C-alpha cells in the first residue's frame, strides 16, 4: 500500500489474535517503517515474515546475508530520514555489534529500531545472553515488552525516542513474547514519513577519532536526556500496594513483570507487595525508583536473562535476585521461578506448596515418559550426506555449524558446533594442529548449510584457502534457511517482499574464494556421493582444499513423494538395528512383525536402503 492509499485504514478494524512478532510487524507498518532488514533466527523470524501481508509499496524488505549487513543497510536509510528496522536474534546482535557501537556515536536521523529477540532457556540458541547488557555497552536505550500488546506499542515509543534524541533504540522481546498470541486491537493508519534526503556532515557520518570523542560526549548527553523523556517516565508503573508497610517491593522488567502481576493477583497479594514495572531498563532512572519506593529498603528484582537492573540498583537497596540465589542465575524464568522466589521471602504464604501439586496419575505416566528429542525430518537429505561422510571418511574430525544439520550429532558426524561459520575456520584450526592417529594425519571435514555459508562461511573459506589449509568442506545446499522455515538463500535470488533479485550462484562464490576443486552431487544418489567424498578426502590429503556441494531440496518444504516407498524383507533382516540406531530416519520403526516403514512419514527418498549392510531394505521396481 502506498502512503496515499492509507486512508483506507482509518484505525480500528477487527481485533486479531497475533503472535508477538506479528504484533511488532503491525507496529512497524503503522509507524511508517520504510526499510526492514533481517537475518532469520528463532525467535525473531516472524517479524519480517509478517510484513509483506500489509502490502506497503514504500517499504523495502530484505533478508540480508547476515545481521551486520542488515543493520548497516538500515543505518544509511535512517541517515536519509526514513524510519527503519533491523531484526535479528540475540546471537545475531553479536555479529551486528560492530556497526551498533559506532552507530550509537554517529546517531541517526529517521528512527532506527533494532529489534533483537532473546532466547532464555535457551530453546534454539548457543547462549542465553541478555541483549539489554549489549544495549548498555553501546549506550543506547532498550525497551523490554512484557506482552505482545506492549511490544506493538513499544515500536511506536521506540521510534519517537529514536527520532527525538537521534539515537538507535533496541526493542528486546524474549521468546515467550515473540511466540505467544494475544488479542491485538485493529490496525492504525500508517504514518506518512518524510521523503528521503541526505545532508552531508563528514564530522558526523565520517567522523575521525578526534570528532568521535565529541560524538561520545554527545551520546552521553543523549542517554542522560532520555531519562527525562515522557515516554520513558511513563514506562515506570507502580501498583496500588502501600510502599511504606511492605516487607519488600518487586522491581520487574519485561515478561517477569507479567508473571509477578499474575501471581500477586491470583494469590490475593496485590495490595501487600508493591510491584514497580520498568519498560525501559536501560538507561535506568535510579533516582526515580528510589523516590517511587521511598520508605522501602528491600527489593526483589525480576528480569530476564541477566542481572542488569540488579547490578545498576546495587548500593541503593538490599536486593534479592540472581546474585544471592533467590532467582536462578541460568535458565528461563517461569511463573514457578517467580513463585519460588516469593515463597523464600514470604514463607508463611504457602506459595511453594501450591507450586508442586501433582496429579494422581503422574506416577503411572512417568514410566511412559520419553521426551522425544528433535531429529532430522523423514526424507531429509542431510541424513544421507552425513551417512556418506561417515562411510567415506571414517575416523575423521567433523566440524559442524548452526542449522538443522546440527542434528547430525545423532549420526556421529558432528564433533564441534561453535557459532555461525565456525565449521570452516575450526576445520582450518584442526588442520594446523596436525592431528595424527597411528602416524597418519586425521582427515578433517567441515559441514555447513548454504545459508550459513553465505552468512559468514565465505570469509572463513577465503582465509583457509589463502593460508594453505586443506580439508573437505561439505556444503549442505537445500536452497534455504530450513530451520527457521525456509527463507530463500542468495543463490535463489528470491526477495523477502516477493519478486526476484539477482541470484548469486554458490559455485561462483566458492571459486571466488580461490578453491580449485569444487564438486556438486546429489546426496540421495548414495553410491556416487560416497565416491565423491572419498575422492575429495584423497585430494585434501594431498594438501588441496576441496568443496563438495551436496544439493537436494528441503524435505519439509518440498513435500512431494520422491519415489516408491522402500520395503523390508523380514526373511533377510537380522534385526541388527543399524538402520534405526545409526541412520535413524523417523519413518523406520520396530513393530511386532519387525522393521516397518511408516507410510505417512516416508518420502520415498530411499536413502535408508544404503544403511542396511545386508540389503534387507530395498526398493521394488514396479
Amino acid at each position, binding site marked *: 500500500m502506498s502512503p496515499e492509499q492509507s486512508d483506507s485504514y482509518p484505525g480500528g478494524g477487527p481485533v486479531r489474535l497475533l503472535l508477538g512478532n506479528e504484533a511488532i510487524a503491525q507496529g512497524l507498518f503503522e509507524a511508517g517503517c520504510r526499510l526492514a532488514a533481517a537475518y532469520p533466527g528463532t525467535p525473531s523470524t516472524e517479524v519480517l515474515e509478517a510484513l509483506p501481508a500489509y502490502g506497503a509499496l514504500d517499504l523495502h524488505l530484505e533478508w540480508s546475508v547476515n545481521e551486520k549487513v542488515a543493520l548497516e543497510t538500515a543505518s544509511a536509510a535512517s541517515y536519509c530520514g526514513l524510519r527503519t528496522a533491523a531484526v535479528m536474534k540475540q546471537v545475531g546482535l553479536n555479529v551486528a555489534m560492530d556497526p551498533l557501537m559506532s552507530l550509537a556515536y554517529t546517531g541517526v536521523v529517521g528512527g532506527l529500531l533494532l529489534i533483537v529477540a532473546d532466547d532464555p532457556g535457551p530453546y534454539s540458541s548457543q547462549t542465553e545472553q541478555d541483549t539489554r547488557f549489549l544495549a548498555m555497552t553501546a549506550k543506547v536505550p532498550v525497551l523490554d515488552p512484557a506482552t505482545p500488546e506492549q511490544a506493538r506499542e513499544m515500536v511506536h515509543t521506540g521510534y519517537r525516542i529514536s527520532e527525538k534524541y537521534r539515537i538507535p533504540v533496541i526493542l528486546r522481546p524474549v521468546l515467550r513474547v515473540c511466540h505467544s498470541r494475544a488479542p491485538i486491537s485493529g490496525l492504525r493508519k500508517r504514518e506518512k514519513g518524510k521523503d528521503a534526503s541526505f545532508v552531508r556532515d563528514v564530522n558526523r557520518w565520517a567522523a575521525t577519532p578526534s570528532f568521535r570523542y565529541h560524538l561520545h560526549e554527545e551520546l552521553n548527553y543523549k542517554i542522560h536526556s532520555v531519562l527525562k523523556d515522557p515516554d520513558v517516565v511513563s514506562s515506570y508503573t507502580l501498583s496500588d500496594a502501600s510502599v511504606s508497610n511492605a516487607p519488600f517491593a518487586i522491581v520487574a522488567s519485561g515478561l517477569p513483570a507479567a508473571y509477578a502481576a499474575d501471581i500477586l493477583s491470583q494469590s490475593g497479594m496485590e495490595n501487600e507487595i508493591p510491584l514497580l514495572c520498568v519498560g525501559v531498563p536501560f538507561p535506568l532512572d535510579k533516582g526515580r525508583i528510589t523516590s517511587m519506593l521511598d520508605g522501602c529498603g528491600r527489593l526483589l528484582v525480576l528480569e530476564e536473562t541477566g542481572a542488569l537492573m540488579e547490578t545498576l540498583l546495587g548500593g541503593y537497596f538490599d536486593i534479592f535476585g540472581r546474585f544471592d540465589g533467590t532467582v536462578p542465575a541460568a535458565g528461563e524464568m517461569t511463573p514457578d521461578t517467580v513463585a519460588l522466589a516469593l515463597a523464600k521471602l514470604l514463607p508463611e504464604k504457602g506459595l511453594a506448596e501450591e507450586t*508442586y501439586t501433582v496429579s494422581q496419575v503422574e506416577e503411572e505416566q512417568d514410566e511412559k515418559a520419553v521426551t522425544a*528429542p528433535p531429529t532430522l525430518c523423514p526424507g531429509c537429505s542431510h541424513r544421507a550426506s552425513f551417512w556418506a561422510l561417515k562411510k567415506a571418511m571414517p575416523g575423521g574430525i567433523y566440524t559442524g555449524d548452526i542449522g538443522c544439520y546440527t542434528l547430525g550429532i545423532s549420526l556421529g558426524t558432528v564433533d564441534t558446533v561453535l557459532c555461525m561459520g565456525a565449521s570452516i575456520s575450526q576445520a582450518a584450526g584442526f588442520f594446523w594442529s596436525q592431528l595424527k592417529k597411528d602416524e597418519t594425519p586425521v582427515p578433517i571435514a567441515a559441514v555447513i548449510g548454504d545459508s550459513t555459508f553465505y552468512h559468514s562461511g565465505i570469509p572463513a573459506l577465503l582465509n583457509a584457502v589463502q593460508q594453505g589449509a586443506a580439508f573437505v568442506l561439505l556444503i549442505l545446499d537445500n536452497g534455504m534457511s530450513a530451520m527457521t522455515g525456509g527463507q530463500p538463500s542468495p543463490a535463489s535470488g528470491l526477495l523477502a517482499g516477493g519478486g526476484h533479485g539477482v541470484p548469486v550462484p554458490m559455485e561462483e562464490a566458492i571459486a571466488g574464494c580461490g578453491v580449485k576443486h569444487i564438486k556438486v552431487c546429489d546426496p540421495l544418489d548414495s553410491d556416487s556421493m560416497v565416491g565423491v567424498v572419498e575422492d575429495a578426502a584423497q585430494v585434501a590429503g594431498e594438501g588441496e582444499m576441496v568443496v563438495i556441494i551436496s544439493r537436494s531440496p528441503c524435505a519439509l518444504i518440498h513435500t512431494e513423494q520422491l519415489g516408491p516407498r522402500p520395503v523390508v524383507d523380514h526373511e533377510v533382516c537380522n534385526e541388527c538395528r543399524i538402520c534405526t540406531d545409526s541412520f535413524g530416519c523417523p519413518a523406520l520403526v520396530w513393530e511386532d512383525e519387525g522393521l516397518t516403514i511408516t507410510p505417512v512419514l516416508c518420502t520415498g527418498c530411499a536413502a535408508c536402503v544404503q544403511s542396511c549392510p545386508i540389503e534387507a531394505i530395498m526398493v521394488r521396481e514396479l
Partner: protein
Amino acid sequence: MKNPQFSYDIVISGRGGQGVLFLSRIIGEAALFQGLMVRTTETHGMAMRGGSVLCFARIGECMAPLFRHGAGRLLMALHDSEVAGGLRFLGPGSRVLVNTREDPKPDLIHVDADGIAASAGNSRSANLALLGAAVTLEDFPLQEHAVESVIKGTGGDRITEINLKIFRSGLIEIGREK
C-alpha cells in the same frame, strides 16, 4: 485454590507435526470469537522437527502466557507418550484428555482421535476430535458453536466439512461414555 475469576489454563502436548500449534490457534480464535481474553504460546524452530512440543492456552484474565505448575485445569495430549510431560502443570480437579487406542484408565479420558480422524478422511485433524471431547467438559469455557465457526474459517469447503465431522465425532464419543 484458584480464584474462579482468573483464567482457565490448558496444556497441549504432542510431537512436532501433530498439529499442536493448529490446536492452540483454534482454541485462541474460538475464545476471541466469544469475546474472552486469551493468551496462547507456540513453539517454533525445533517444533517442526518431530520433538516433544508443549503449548499453553489461557482463557480469561491473565497477563503472562505461562502459568504455574499446579494451575492447569485441562491437559490435551495428542500422543500418549506426551501425557507425563504435561501432567506437572495440572492441579486438583483437573482433567486429562489423551489421544490413544488403549483401554481407558482411571483419571484419564481416552479418545481414539487418530481413529476418528482417519475414518473421517483427514488423519491430520485428530486434534479436532480431542477438542470436540474437551467441549463436553462442564467447566470448559469454549462453546461448540464458537469452535465450529472458527473451523469453518480455516480451509476449503471439503476439508472444512471433514474437520467439522471430526470435531463433532469427538463430542459424540465422549457424550456416549458419559
